[in-house]
C-alpha cells in the first residue's frame, strides 16, 4: 500500500519546486529562540507597529490635511456651527460618522502609546543585561534610532488632528525649533513655511511625513534590525549547556511560531479592547485650536512627558549679548536635554567597552547584578530622565496634594542633580549585595560546621558563642578580579575553538591573556601534560586548558566569586576611624 501523503506535503513541494528554497526554509524552521519573557518586549513593539500600519491606512482614507476654515455640520451637537479647520472637522467626522471609525482611531492612538512603551522597556532590557555589547552594538544603534523616530512619529500623529491640545503642542515645537541658537528662527520659518501659524502647506507636509516618510524608514530599520538578529542569533542568559558559542531554546517550528502568533493576537486583543472600551483623546471635548486659546492641566501623550518637564524645569534666563539672544530658553529643555539623553544612549556601547576594557564578543547576557557599576550608572541615567518626566506632571501633584507648584519646581531644580547620585549609590550597593552576598550569613550562625580532621575522619566544630567558627575559606584568584579571570577564559575559549590548533602555542596564548588584561602580565600560561594551565602570580592554578571530545575547553579551577563565602578583608579607612573613635570614647568614660 502506498502511504497517503501528509496534507502539508503539497505545500512543501510547491515551494521547493518554484524556489528551490528547502534549505533556507529548513534553516528558518530550525531557528532557535531562547525562552525568556523579556525577549517578548521587542516582539510586542513589532506587533504594535503592524497594528499602527493597518489602522493608520484606514484613518488616512478619511483624514484631510488642511487648515482651511470650515463650519462643522456633523452629528456632534455641541460643535455644530463652530468654525474649525478641515483637519479637525475630518477627524471628528471619522470618529462619529464613519462606522467603527472611533474604534479604529482609538485603537491607533493606544497602539502608538503601547508601541513606544514596548520600545522603551525593550531598550531597558537590552541596556541592563548588556545585550548592546559587541557584535550587537550596531543593532542597538538601529533600535535607538527607531525610538527617536517613534517619538517624532507619535508627535506628528496627534498634531495632525489640530485640536486644542495638539495645537498647543505644535506651537511649543515651533518655539523649540526657533530656540536653536543662531539659525532657529530661519529653521522654524523654513519648516512651517511662514511665521506661526505657518503656511497652508504645513498640513500636507506633516501628513506625508507621518503616513509615508517615517513609516517607510521605520519599516526599513525594522527589517535591518531583524536581519541582524538572524545573523547574530539571539543572546541568552547563563544556564545549563548555554555557552558563548551556542543558543539553547525552542525552535521556530512549530511551538515557537504558535506562541509568537499567540502573542501577536494578544497584542491586537489588548489594543482593540483599549480602543473600544477606554476613551483616549476625545478631541470634541477639547475643541479646535486657535492661537489665542490654551487650556490648563494639559498633558501630552506619555512619551513626550520628559520634554514638557524639561521645558518647565529650566530657570527663566536667556544669555543676551549686544541685544542678540544667543540661547533662547526652550533650547535647554526641548533640544539640549533630549540630545544629551540620546547622545549618551548612542555612546553607551563605546563607553561600556572603555570602562570594562572589554573588546570581546558576547553571546551570554549579564544579569543586572553581575555588573553593579553598569547597573548603577544606568539606573542613575534613567532616574535623571524619570525625574524630568515627573516634573512635567508637577501641576497634577499640586491639584492632587496641594503642594505649592513653585516650591516643587525649586526643589527639583536642585534635586535633579542630587537624586541621580543617590540612586547611583543605592543601586550600586544593592546590586553588589545581590551579587556577592548570597553566600554570606546575615545574622548570627545557625548551623554546624563539619571539617575533615588532620588525622583522618571528621570533626564537628561547635561555635563558642553563636559566632561562626573560623574555617579557612577557599580563596579566589590573587592579583586579578573574578571578572578579569572570566574575560581571560572567554578569550582563550574563543581563540582556541576558532583556530582549532593541534598543538598549543603557549607563547601566543600568553600574549592573548596579557592583552585581555589590558597589557598587564598578571597571569601566566604554562604547558602541562594534558594541555596548559593558567597560573596567578603566587603560582595558584586558576584554569585548565584541556582537549576533550574534539574541542578545546578552558575550565575554571577556582570557584567563581559568587560561590565564595565572604573572605576576611582589611578594614576600610572608615572602619578603622570608627574603631579608633570607639577606643577613645571608652577611655574617656569613667
Amino acid at each position, binding site marked *: 500500500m502506498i502511504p497517503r501523503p501528509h496534507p502539508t506535503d503539497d505545500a512543501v513541494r510547491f515551494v521547493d519546486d518554484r524556489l528551490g528554497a528547502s534549505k533556507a526554509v529548513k534553516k528558518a524552521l530550525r531557528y532557535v529562540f531562547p525562552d525568556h519573557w523579556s525577549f517578548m518586549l521587542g516582539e510586542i513593539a513589532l506587533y504594535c507597529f503592524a497594528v499602527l500600519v493597518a489602522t493608520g491606512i484606514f484613518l488616512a482614507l478619511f483624514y484631510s490635511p488642511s487648515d482651511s476654515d470650515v463650519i462643522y455640520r456633523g452629528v456632534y451637537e455641541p460643535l455644530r456651527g463652530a468654525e474649525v479647520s478641515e483637519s479637525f472637522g475630518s477627524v471628528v467626522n471619522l470618529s462619529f460618522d464613519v462606522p467603527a471609525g472611533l474604534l479604529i482611531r482609538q485603537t491607533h492612538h493606544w497602539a502608538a502609546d503601547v508601541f513606544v512603551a514596548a520600545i522603551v522597556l525593550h531598550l531597558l532590557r537590552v541596556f541592563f543585561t548588556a545585550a548592546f555589547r559587541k557584535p550587537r552594538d550596531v543593532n542597538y544603534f538601529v533600535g535607538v534610532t527607531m525610538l527617536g523616530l517613534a517619538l517624532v512619529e507619535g508627535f506628528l500623529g496627534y498634531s495632525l488632528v489640530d485640536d486644542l491640545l495638539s495645537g498647543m503642542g505644535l506651537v511649543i515645537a515651533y518655539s523649540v525649533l526657533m530656540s536653536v541658537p543662531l539659525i532657529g528662527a530661519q529653521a522654524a*520659518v523654513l519648516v512651517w513655511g511662514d511665521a506661526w501659524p505657518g503656511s497652508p502647506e504645513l498640513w500636507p507636509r506633516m501628513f506625508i511625513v507621518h503616513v509615508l516618510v517615517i513609516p517607510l524608514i521605520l519599516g526599513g530599520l525594522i527589517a535591518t534590525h531583524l536581519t541582524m538578529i538572524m545573523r547574530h542569533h539571539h543572546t541568552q542568559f547563563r544556564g545549563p549547556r548555554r555557552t558563548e558559542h551556542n543558543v539553547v531554546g525552542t525552535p521556530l517550528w512549530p511551538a515557537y511560531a504558535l506562541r509568537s502568533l499567540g502573542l501577536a*493576537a494578544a497584542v491586537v486583543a489588548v489594543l482593540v479592547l483599549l480602543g473600544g472600551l477606554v476613551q483616549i483623546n476625545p478631541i470634541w471635548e477639547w475643541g479646535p485650536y486657535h492661537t489665542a486659546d490654551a487650556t490648563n492641566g494639559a498633558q501630552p501623550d506619555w512619551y513626550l512627558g520628559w520634554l514638557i518637564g524639561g521645558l518647565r524645569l529650566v530657570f527663566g534666563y536667556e544669555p543676551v549679548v549686544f541685544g542678540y539672544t544667543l540661547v533662547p530658553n526652550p533650547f535647554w529643555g526641548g533640544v539640549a536635554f533630549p540630545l544629551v539623553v540620546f547622545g549618551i544612549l548612542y555612546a553607551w556601547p563605546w563607553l561600556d567597552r572603555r570602562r570594562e576594557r572589554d573588546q570581546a564578543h558576547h553571546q551570554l547576557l549579564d544579569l543586572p547584578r553581575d555588573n553593579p557599576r553598569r547597573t548603577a550608572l544606568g539606573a542613575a541615567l534613567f532616574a535623571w530622565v524619570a525625574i524630568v518626566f515627573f516634573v512635567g506632571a508637577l501641576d497634577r501633584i499640586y491639584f492632587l496634594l496641594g503642594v505649592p507648584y513653585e516650591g516643587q519646581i525649586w526643589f527639583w531644580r536642585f534635586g535633579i542633580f542630587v537624586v541621580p547620585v543617590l540612586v547611583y549609590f543605592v543601586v550600586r550597593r544593592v546590586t553588589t549585595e545581590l551579587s556577592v552576598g548570597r553566600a554570606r550569613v546575615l545574622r548570627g550562625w545557625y548551623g554546624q560546621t563539619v571539617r575533615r580532621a588532620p588525622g583522618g575522619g571528621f570533626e564537628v566544630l561547635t561555635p563558642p558563642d553563636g559566632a561562626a567558627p573560623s574555617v579557612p575559606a577557599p580563596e579566589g584568584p590573587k592579583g586579578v578580579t573574578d571578572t578579569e579571570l572570566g574575560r581571560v577564559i572567554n578569550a582563550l575559549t574563543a581563540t582556541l575553538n576558532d583556530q582549532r590548533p593541534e598543538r598549543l602555542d603557549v607563547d601566543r596564548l600568553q600574549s592573548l591573556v596579557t592583552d585581555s588584561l589590558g597589557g598587564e602580565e598578571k597571569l601566566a600560561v604554562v604547558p602541562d601534560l594534558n594541555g596548559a594551565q593558567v597560573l596567578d602570580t603566587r603560582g595558584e592554578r586558576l584554569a585548565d586548558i584541556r582537549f576533550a571530545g574534539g574541542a578545546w575547553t578552558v575550565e575554571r579551577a577556582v570557584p567563581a566569586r559568587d560561590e565564595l563565602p565572604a573572605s576576611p578583608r582589611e578594614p576600610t579607612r572608615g572602619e578603622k576611624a570608627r574603631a579608633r573613635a570607639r577606643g577613645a570614647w571608652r577611655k574617656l568614660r569613667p
Partner: protein
Amino acid sequence: MRRRPPGQDEATTWEREVPRSGVMEGLVALLLAVAGVCAAAFAVLYVLDASTQLLGLSLGLAFAALAAALVVAGKRVVPQETAILDKPPLPDPEEREEVRELVRDAGEGVSRRGLIVGAAGVAGCGLGAALVLPIASLGPGADARLARTPWRRGRYLVDEEGERFGPDDLALGGFLTAFPEGADKEEVGSPVILARLRSQELDLPPERRGWAQDGVVAYSKICTHAGCAVAMFRYPLYPPQTPPPALVCPCHYSTFDPRNGGERTFGPAARALPQLPLMLDAQRRFVAGGPLSGRPGPSYLTVRK
C-alpha cells in the same frame, strides 16, 4: 580551505516531548470556535451600527480567544522541543585578510595619494558650503516675518465676536481676549489679553504711565517662552490677597506680573510680555495707542532688537 565542520550551524535536539493531550486539543478547538463566534458577532454589530464599546469588545474578545488558542496549542498540543544551535564565530580571519587586500589593492600604483585626498577635501568643503549657504537667504525674510504685528496707533480692539468694547465691559479682576479689528486672529502678534486691576495698584515704568485706562492693561497673549496662549489671570478679590495678581501660561507655568509691565515673576520665560498702549475714543471704546512694546511670541536671535 578551513570550513566549519558538518553539524555546526544546525540545531540539534536536546529534549523533545510529545504532549498527546486530548483535553488540550479540545480546549484549543473550543477557543478557536469562541474566536469565530466573537468575530461573527463583530460583523453583526457592525451591520447594526452598534456602539464603539460593543464593537471593541467583540473584536477584542475574538483576538483574545485566538491568542489563548495559539498559546495553548504552542505549549500543550504540539511537540515541545529544546534544541541547541552551535554558532560559528562571526569573524573569519582568512576572508577578512582577503577583503583587506582587495581594498588595499585599489591604491596600487598611485603615487600622489596625499595630493588627491587634499584636493578631495577642498571639493567636499566647497560643495558643502555651496549647498548649505542658500539657507541664509531665508534670514532677513524670517526676521521681518517674525517681527510683524497688526497693531498700529488708532486701531480698534475687538473681542472674540468682533465687537468693539470699553473698560466698562470689564469688571475688577476680570479679563478678556482682544484682537486688532479686521486683522488675522491666528497671527502670533494679534491676540492681546486685557485685565482689569485697581488703578492705584499699577506700577508701570515711567514711560508707560498713560498706557492703562481705568486700571485696564493690555499685554500680548502669546507667552514669550514657548508660544502658548497666556490664558489664566489670577486676581484674588478677597483677603488673603496673596499670591499677588498674575498672568499665567498653562503650558509651562510662566508667570507674569500685570501691574509692572508684564515682568516675569516665575517660570521658564525670560522676557516680559510685550505691552499694548491703550487709549479710549469718544464713546469710551478701546483703541491701540501704538504698537506692542516688544516683539511678541517665543525668543530667537534678534527678538530683542
